[in-house]
């Protein structure tokens, strides 16, 4: 499964560690929320980055106290029809100021890229190779956005107001 990061197909530097496997002494790891919360101190004492896979049916509030220790949060789309992780992503980015990697996992398909980018995801475990290859062109498909989110894209309403101002200034 290819990983797309910062718009490009990239090597995944994180290793997924199952709940019953020992934690490696160093290197970047991705572990379950349950394992992380069980002993956050032990995990944090390790050398190497920590990423947590956060389920889509658990409040992100429970993760908020630890955000500054995390290098990655992986949110889950069990199917592409299940959109809970979009809300979690926006809460982490926009309300809780999380700046680390925010990874979309599960059934991640081309047709969700734009929504995910707008919600604050910056890394994508893409299901199909062809979708990963098409990432850049897909991300450019839209140039007009109606909703303000934390991604910084300027909304249509805002652009109209700017136009108004420049028109009245030029008069």
């Amino acid at each position, binding site marked *: 499964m290819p990983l797309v990061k910062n718009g490009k197909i990239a090597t995944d530097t994180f290793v997924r560690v199952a709940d019953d496997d020992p934690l490696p002494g160093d290197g970047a790891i991705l572990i379950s929320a349950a394992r992380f919360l069980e002993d956050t101190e032990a995990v944090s004492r390790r050398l190497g980055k920590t990423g947590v896979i956060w389920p889509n049916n658990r409040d992100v509030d429970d993760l908020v106290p630890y955000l500054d220790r995390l290098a990655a949060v992986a949110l889950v789309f069990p199917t*592409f*029809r*299940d*959109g*809970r992780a*979009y*809300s*979690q992503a*926006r809460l982490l980015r926009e*309300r809780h100021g999380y700046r680390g990697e925010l990874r979309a996992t599960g059934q991640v*398909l081309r*047709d969700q890229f*734009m*929504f*995910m980018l*707008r*919600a604050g995801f910056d890394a994508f475990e893409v299901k199909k190779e*062809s979708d990963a290859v098409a990432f850049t062109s897909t991300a450019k*498909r*839209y*140039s*007009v*956005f*109606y*909703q*303000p*989110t934390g991604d910084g894209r300027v*909304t*249509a*309403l805002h*652009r*109209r*107001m700017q136009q*108004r101002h420049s028109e009245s200034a030029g008069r």
Partner: protein
Amino acid sequence: MYAYDELDRTLINERVSEFRDQVKRRLSGELTEDEFKMLRLQNGVYLQLHAYMLRVAIPYGTLSSKQLRRLAHVARRYDRGYGHFTTRQNIQFNWIKLAELPDALADLAEVGIHAMQTSGNNTRNVTSDQWAGVAPGEIEDPRIWSELLRQYTTLHPEFSFLPRKFKFAITASAHDRAAIKVHDIGLRLHKNAEGETGFEVLVGGGLGRTPFIGKTIKPFVPGRDLLSYVEAILRVYNQYGRRDNIYKARIKILVHELGIEKFAQEVEQEWLATRDSALTLDDAVVEEIRSRFTYPAYEKLPHMPDELKKAAHDPDFETWRKNSVAPHKVPGYAIVTLSLKPVGGPPGDATADQMDAVADLADKYSFGEIRVGHEQNLALPHVARRDLPVLWRALDKVGLATPNVNLVTDIIACPGLDYCSLANARSIPIAQELTRRFANHDTANLIGRLHVNISGCINACGHHHVGHIGILGVEKNGEEFYQITIGGRADEHAAVGTLIGPAVPYGEVADVVEDIVEAYLALRERPDELFIDAVKRLGVEPFRERVYATR
């Protein structure tokens, strides 16, 4: 009319090109049907019994003549020469080919029409009062806010994969023509004690297999906070709405299971964290949207012009005028409803020729504007009263002057088993039979206001729960049976109808409705006690007795 600007146009064109790519990937097999299904639904494409069906949005029920002509073109070019207006200000084309869908959408995009989110588990077409902007006594034109919501809900990055579909309706009149109480979010525009404009917000209304009347979650949300408040509701729903069972996934179930107080608390908490954000609508922003709605330059005209006095001698004209013409906020003008319920016809259907004719008449007599109502009729919203006689003759020529608006033959019906893959029973032939039974206008007029709503299955697209008489098709041992309810209504006093007894077979439905109507005529206190009021006063028992005494 709202005029699309370059940004709106760009966005729908980008959407069409994305969909063209999705169709191409489906046809090449790159997308599975399961993957494609959600994508096509988000563009209004269903797979029905015989073909693909395209549902096109008519936001808040407003169309220009140019747009209506384009709908006629799509009916002719890609379909079989007609379209079906639905109960949510959409039009459906029933015979479209998958490979041609992107072209049809591109043709529509040229006139600012789209099919985005007319199905799928997302925020659907925002509906409103079909008399918005012209009804006397309105607080203000609710379409300004409808358009703000249309933009806000279109391709929302957070709420495009909700637990289930989500419908908004807005009204700004005391008499609710938008059925806001049976929507996921219903908005009633009003002014608070300080004279500030805002919304009573209702949540959790809906029909389907578990009907609920919406509950007030907040009596007053200022206009500037509308979007942040809506976002708070949607965010709570997106995270906590049930996803384990499709039949329990609507917000009405979440509201019901949590209770409105608890749900309101959750929303309030979420809202307090977001209300002062980029979603706040300051006056300049609202004005910017308002400025792109244009209104006709009305003339100063007499209320009772000579043309109207003369035509009053023609009883047929008078019958139509009394039935189909409503008061306008501007003196000398009227709102004219065009019945799409001819005797023997499928409710809500219009041919391409009729659409073209209406577009021409709108240009001549209604400043080029047409409205679509949830009762599946059209309206011309700005007709000079002096033009009523000539308009009536023109409408009559194209079969659009049936004087049955709000009468027993003005039936709301879903497409039913004739088209729909979900249906258990036919709806259209029941409606057609009823229009024949009550074809005599004097009889229908004597009966007075009576809404008959027919759904071909429990999904309730024909809004049977809120029909004064509701008819629901069910299947029993491979045969079509129909449950009959009475006492439902969709207006400001919205209520779910009560079942009168065991389901009856297809062949008996029209007889049962006749029995109910006869019972009403015998029981009403006076001629102006409406059916719905008589049911409220008497309960269902006398009607039940009458219907089942001989069955």
